[in-house]
């Protein structure tokens, strides 16, 4: 197929797609008609029924928590996939040359300014991550978003120091266990509903006082479980990435 034939095929498809696209757009509701009954119901129910102020987290971790389990396991399985794809790397001592500041002759050692600033930033970052996780039921955020903020703390520690320190602080096995624990905790929290003779993942714990950290029954617990899983999952990804980009084979070095 030469260039012109390919162009003709592309143009035919593109005009068809453009026509359908424009037709679909003409029937879109305007910005004022976007309110729908589900959203209105969720907003109306959040404070009286669940004693929480963040409707999004309440829907995610309560009304459709079962879907959220699926979403969480998408991340879990992708991290597992990455670990499986890269697993031979761990078994190859010949590639254990670290091109970071612990190796002499590395000219990219972090400057004192970077070192000082990142070390100052570690504690606020951890605090901010925990805050976002703990306040999932009250303000925008939750386990997922807070977990990634937590995961950046070891990363900036790596920026300030080197891979060996990163390995010491975030031990591979500890992170692996934390990820599995977070994923398992979410699934097991759902069983509480079964013990109360209700459906799986029914929010059966006491709802608490609105605008308190403990409000929302199981919502904060699920938020913490998701936070652990996501934070550990992202640290594992960083682990594999740093290991892959920092090691060189003997021949290249």
């Amino acid at each position: 197929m030469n260039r012109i034939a390919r162009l003709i095929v592309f143009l035919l498809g593109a005009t068809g797609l453009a026509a359908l696209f424009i037709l679909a757009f003409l029937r879109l509701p305007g910005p004022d008609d976007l309110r729908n009954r589900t959203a209105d119901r969720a907003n109306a129910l959040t404070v009286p029924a669940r004693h929480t102020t963040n409707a999004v987290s309440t829907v995610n971790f309560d009304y459709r928590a079962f879907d959220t389990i699926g979403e969480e396991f998408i991340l879990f399985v992708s991290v597992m996939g990455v670990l499986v794809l890269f697993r031979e790397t761990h078994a190859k001592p010949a590639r254990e040359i670290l091109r970071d500041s612990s190796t002499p002759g590395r000219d990219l050692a972090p400057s004192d300014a970077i070192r000082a600033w990142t070390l100052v930033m570690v504690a606020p970052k951890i605090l901010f991550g925990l805050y976002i996780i703990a306040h999932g039921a009250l303000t925008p955020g939750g386990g997922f978003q807070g977990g990634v903020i937590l995961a950046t703390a070891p990363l900036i520690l790596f920026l300030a120091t080197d891979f060996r320190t990163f390995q010491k602080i975030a031990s591979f096995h500890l992170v692996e266990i934390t990820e599995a624990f977070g994923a398992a905790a979410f699934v097991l929290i759902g069983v509480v509903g079964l013990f109360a003779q209700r459906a799986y993942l029914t929010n059966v714990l006491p709802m608490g006082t609105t605008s308190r950290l403990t409000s929302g029954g199981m919502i904060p617990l699920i938020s913490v479980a998701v936070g652990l899983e996501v934070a550990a999952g992202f640290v594992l990804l960083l682990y594999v990435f740093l290991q892959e980009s920092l090691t060189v084979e003997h021949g290249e070095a």
Partner: protein
Amino acid sequence: MIVLQLAILILVAATGTAVVFSRNAESQPIGISFYGLVLSIMFFIFQAPDVALSQLVIGAVGLPLMIMLALARLRRPDR
């Protein structure tokens, strides 16, 4: 507000097109990361801060990281 919404939508379209047209494998993850950042600002402007945070996490950090990992692996095939 409507000006801001229009501006961010145009920016999303522009960065999306730029990602499609970047042919260099090294610059693609960076482009996707920037596109993810712009998308998350768009969600924020359209008053969905929760979605904006998730988008920031997945689009600007997670996905580019995974692409870069895949590139690193492709560059150095195991014998």
